[in-house]
């Protein structure tokens, strides 16, 4: 094997190794194609392009009951080993903004006070929702797929309910926290900057899937797969 092709193969193997669980299959698919590319340089270009897959972190695909159970195990594993990122980040923001309001109150103008107050209130809200989102029900003790499916569906339903109830303003709160921070900086252009930033974010919010929709889609997928499985039995 020539050095250029060897490098292409090495890169694509690395992409497979580093890909997130939801991307693994895609990274493997990309890597397999290398064998079918005649030109070594084109193979190298293909392999370099495959690194872009690493930037994506899609949910693990759900196509059958085993995959739902696998997703449940992965979900439980992640919750146990990954710290509550949202809670930690927003708690820090809350602390920082309250600190500014308390100790620099006299040195701030009205806009800055309003900005930091909005940022603090948004951070407090995000911290509460982040904490509730990170909590997990009791994970199944045994290895039965059925228990894991039930567990995973339950967790998705709980998150959907959280983000369509108390957490419905979660994306808006992220925007308002950033807008508050922006309003808190010094300078005469900040009100305009804040208005422009908020307007752009509000437009962008219409384009992205809101958390409740994402979790609802997952619940629908699980129900569809379970229905199909029941029908085939």
């Amino acid at each position, binding site marked *: 094997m020539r050095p250029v092709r060897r490098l292409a193969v090495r890169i694509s193997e690395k992409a497979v190794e580093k890909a997130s669980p939801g991307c693994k299959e895609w990274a493997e698919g990309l890597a397999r194609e290398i064998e079918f590319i005649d030109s070594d340089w084109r193979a190298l270009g293909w392999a370099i392009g*495959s690194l872009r897959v690493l930037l994506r972190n899609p949910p693990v695909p759900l196509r059958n009951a085993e995959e739902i159970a696998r997703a449940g195990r992965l979900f439980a594993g992640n919750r146990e080993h990954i710290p509550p990122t949202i809670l930690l980040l927003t708690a820090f923001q809350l602390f920082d903004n309250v600190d500014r309001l308390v100790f620099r109150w006299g040195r701030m103008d009205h806009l800055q006070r309003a900005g930091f107050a909005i940022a603090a209130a948004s951070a407090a809200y995000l911290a509460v929702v982040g904490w509730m989102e990170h909590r997990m029900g009791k994970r199944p003790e045994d290895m039965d797929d059925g228990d894991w499916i039930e567990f995973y569906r339950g967790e998705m339903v709980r998150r959907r309910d959280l983000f369509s109830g108390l957490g419905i303003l979660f994306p808006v709160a992220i925007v308002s926290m950033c807008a508050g921070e922006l309003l808190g900086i010094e300078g005469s252009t900040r009100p305009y900057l804040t208005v422009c930033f908020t307007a752009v974010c509000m437009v962008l919010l219409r384009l992205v899937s809101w958390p409740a929709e994402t979790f609802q889609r997952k619940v629908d997928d699980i129900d569809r797969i379970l229905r199909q499985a029941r029908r085939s039995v």
Partner: protein
Amino acid sequence: MNLKIRRSPQTLLVLAEFLEDEQAWRYGYDMSRATGLKSGTLYPILMRLAEHGLLETSWETAVEGRPPRHMYKLTQDGLRYGRAQTAVQRVAAIGEPAFGGVGL
């Protein structure tokens, strides 16, 4: 169908290529050659389509001496979405004034 997929020219190109032969399973590299898209552009589009249930994926049955390849095909929803999007594109193209709207 109200889907939050960015209708980029590249996505339309991929959909149109799948619609060339609706029932055929397609390989990534073949799709890349047919559409002229690089792997770093093509695969995120395929992944997005799959995430929305518009694309199904499968592994080719292994043949001796050849690794199995990952294959792609539009689902029924994908075919409906693809036809609708390419039709919208055709209508838009017809509606565009010739010579960029410059009166002759």
